[in-house]
């Protein structure tokens, strides 16, 4: 897992593949649409059974989940549990669920020799609930595989927050 993780994280030396980047961009718009419309089970269906969903802490953005503290380190099972609770309303912090907008840009994609796709992109997620709006800027590093109805499947999704602290947000209760 750590090898795959490193390859998803490493900065590719060559320029991104323009055509592939455009294709991936549309996939990420689809991903964002499902999240914002709270179609979370459909969103979860984009993941491979060996997937990982990671959010490093704000003070260890390049952390290694084997050794460092993280905010999120979900495998398929934990992500399924996270999604279930968000859908059935037992994640009290999202019950009723907030209004979100996932903005995705700066999308770059590279085809790896093994056929998988490494991507980098920036995101800003707005979360509004009651009288507050929390803003979560950050970057995606993902490993995608070709396949599935949406054209790609997500094997690894690492969301690195561009925040020094999680204040005043206090939590990451939605999916980034």
């Amino acid at each position: 897992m750590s090898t795959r993780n490193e390859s998803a994280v490493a900065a590719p030396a060559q320029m991104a593949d323009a055509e592939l980047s455009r294709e991936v961009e549309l996939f990420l718009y689809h991903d964002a649409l499902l999240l914002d419309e709270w179609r979370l089970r459909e969103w979860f269906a984009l993941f491979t059974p060996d997937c990982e969903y990671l959010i490093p802490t704000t003070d260890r953005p390049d952390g290694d989940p084997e050794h460092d503290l993280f905010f999120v380190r979900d495998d398929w099972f934990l992500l399924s549990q996270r999604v279930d609770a968000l859908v059935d309303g037992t994640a009290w912090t999202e019950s009723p669920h907030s209004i979100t907008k996932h903005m995705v840009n700066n999308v770059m994609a590279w085809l790896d020799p093994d056929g998988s796709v490494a991507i980098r992109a920036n995101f800003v997620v707005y979360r509004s609930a009651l009288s507050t709006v929390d803003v979560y800027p950050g970057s995606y590093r993902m490993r995608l595989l070709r396949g599935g109805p949406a054209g790609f499947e997500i094997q690894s999704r690492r969301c690195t927050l561009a925040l020094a602290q999680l204040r005043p947000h206090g939590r990451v209760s939605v999916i980034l």
Partner: protein
Amino acid sequence: MPYVIDDRETPRFRVARSTMVDAAILEEERRNIFDKSWLFVGHESEIDNPHDFRTRNVGGRPIIFTRNADREVRVFVNSCPHRGMQIETRGEGHGRFLKCFYHGWSFNTSGDLVAIPGEDSYGENFDRHNLCLVRPAKVESYRGFVFLSWTNDIADLQTYLAGATDILDLFADQSELGMQIIGGSHLYSVQANWKLLSENSADGYHALTTHHRYLVMLKESGKDLSKVFAAGPAPFMGYDLGNGHAVIGGADGTGGGNSGLGRDLSGDGLLQQMKRRDRFAELYGADWANRMFSGRNLVIFPNLAVIDLIMGITLRTYYPVAPGYMEVSAWSLQPKDDDPELRRMRQENFLTFWGPAGLATPDDVEALQRCQRGFAAHDVAPWNDISRGMASERKIFTDELQMRVFWREWDRRMTGTEHAPETPQLGKRGRVGWPGQLSSTP
């Protein structure tokens, strides 16, 4: 109107919600509580090497936590003695010198002023020793846990910690090589009064309802929850440790031995864990090992929680910025010598529960914030009720003894009201079993 009504006859215990919203009360808390308590600074493992440093806020003041060339732990006010600039703004780092960029004054990690541009302009009576980095009144350490006091007028740390020293031993004993805070911090906030987190950090009553989704996850993972919650021979119980500190904890039989409220260990992980347990039983006796391998939620007055519940130990401290807003810093404490499989499971269990994106903590944050919003009506709905278990002799983990212990000390500090302890206080007893609990180890 009193802040706390401690009615032993009915019995009934009530706390005024005004204490959560009133800015004048927060100012008094700063003077009567935070400036007169031992406050947690950090763990010695965070500054393993000479000249490692961490910066943080302790009791509302910026500090630098470091280790000098002689490996001595040092804490300084993070403010230049010259004109007050905060010297270091990085959260952590390493360096022999702490340099203020404003006018170029430099200090070593013992706090001495070692370089000052244009020193000759100060005249021949100028003495650098008068301009060392300012230190808190006292800094002391217990088993690697470093605390400071902003006043000299305070008992030594161990006396202050009272029975909490035993509980810290239960954490510190978990490695022969020593415990360590791993890299990375959970730096978050809660839009609620800080005292709500002292209550919530040892609140067994809310687990089944607030953490419903976490428990569903455990069940789906194949965990047999009936074993964890069986009130067998040794349920989690609540104890008054003196000086406002309290713990809920249990011996094996409360789901301990495996991973408590965490996901079950793999076969290999369990084998490693049992090996550790045998080793500690050999070193410290079966009763102590029994306690070590179960769980406990410790709250050290006023604002430190150390919790071992799911096999990943969290250490969290929090400070009020405003009556309805606190900053929380939390870390993960682990044995230095965990085998990789066990470490991986510890990490997974930790993150599944703890932290601002776990499957539990965000719901605590939500609960506390909703309480705070409810307190907006404190003038017409003035009281919180914290009476649970007051009528019974045996205080179990779903009772609220531990919160009453906190509030009685809080009230003593704020109003001078002395409240007699509700149960015998547990002083330092050494490496023995819990009182009132039967060991399930044959």
